[in-house]
């Protein structure tokens, strides 16, 4: 299944990247490039909306962790929107639930 990425910068200071599809070893590099591009454009408050992610593996997680590191080292943050149990479970098992700020809605993520 294809990975769709949609970037919305119409809610400054937030840049929202909506991810749809399967985030695995094949598709995750595209998300990494998109995150790097947003940071290089000067965005520091990123929100990754994972509500339409059907599948997430450790490579996808690694890309999100890499993005978070890059942003925090630039006084920024990467928040996640996710309510799907099968995706949240992956964060839970790997102990990353406490590392990211994970919210149920985009509005909550923007209240920071």
């Amino acid at each position, binding site marked *: 299944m294809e990975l769709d990425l949609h970037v919305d910068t119409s809610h400054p200071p937030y840049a929202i990247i909506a991810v749809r599809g399967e985030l695995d*070893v094949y598709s995750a590099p595209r998300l990494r490039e998109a995150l790097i591009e947003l940071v290089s454009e000067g965005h520091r408050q990123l929100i990754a909306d994972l509500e339409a992610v059907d*599948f997430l*593996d*450790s490579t996808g997680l690694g890309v999100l962790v890499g993005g978070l*590191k890059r942003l925090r080292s630039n006084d920024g943050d990467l928040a996640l929107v996710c309510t799907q*149990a099968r995706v949240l479970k992956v964060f839970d098992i*790997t102990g990353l*639930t406490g*590392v990211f700020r994970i919210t149920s809605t985009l509005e909550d993520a923007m209240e920071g």
Partner: protein
Amino acid sequence: MASTAAGTMSVELSVPSRSEYVAVVRLVVASLAAGTRNLAADRIDDLKLAVSEACTNAIEANRNAGSDAAVIASCWEAPERLEVCIADSGTGFEPAALRAHPQANDPERLNFERGLGIPLIRSLVDDLRFESTPQGTKVWMTMFGGPDSGDQTTEIVRTVVDRD
């Protein structure tokens, strides 16, 4: 079909050692598990993720060894369990030497962008074992649960629909 202590092999899949084929392997294994085993949907999701992680590792092992060999996935069915084996032609590894990840509140935790695969697999499947030699690694993942005993859900839905 071959039979061993692990059961009878029902599926064997050989795919090129490239990342775009990981999705094919996880879909085939998940379809088999959903179609023939009495496993709950979330357990099938667990197996799908575990298979994906094992294939990702297998591709990396082949690449590190400079091997263009295929990744071989096989499914072995016994009355009480399904075993999935993912085999590579890498140089092998020492499972006991795997480093544990720091806790989530440890600042070091963010330095672990990689190496999450095996801890994940371990927590997703009922049993995990490795056969690793300098000629390659086989990762065996077991899910307990017998063969599907029939489409009970459909039967219940049909009863409710008929009643109304």
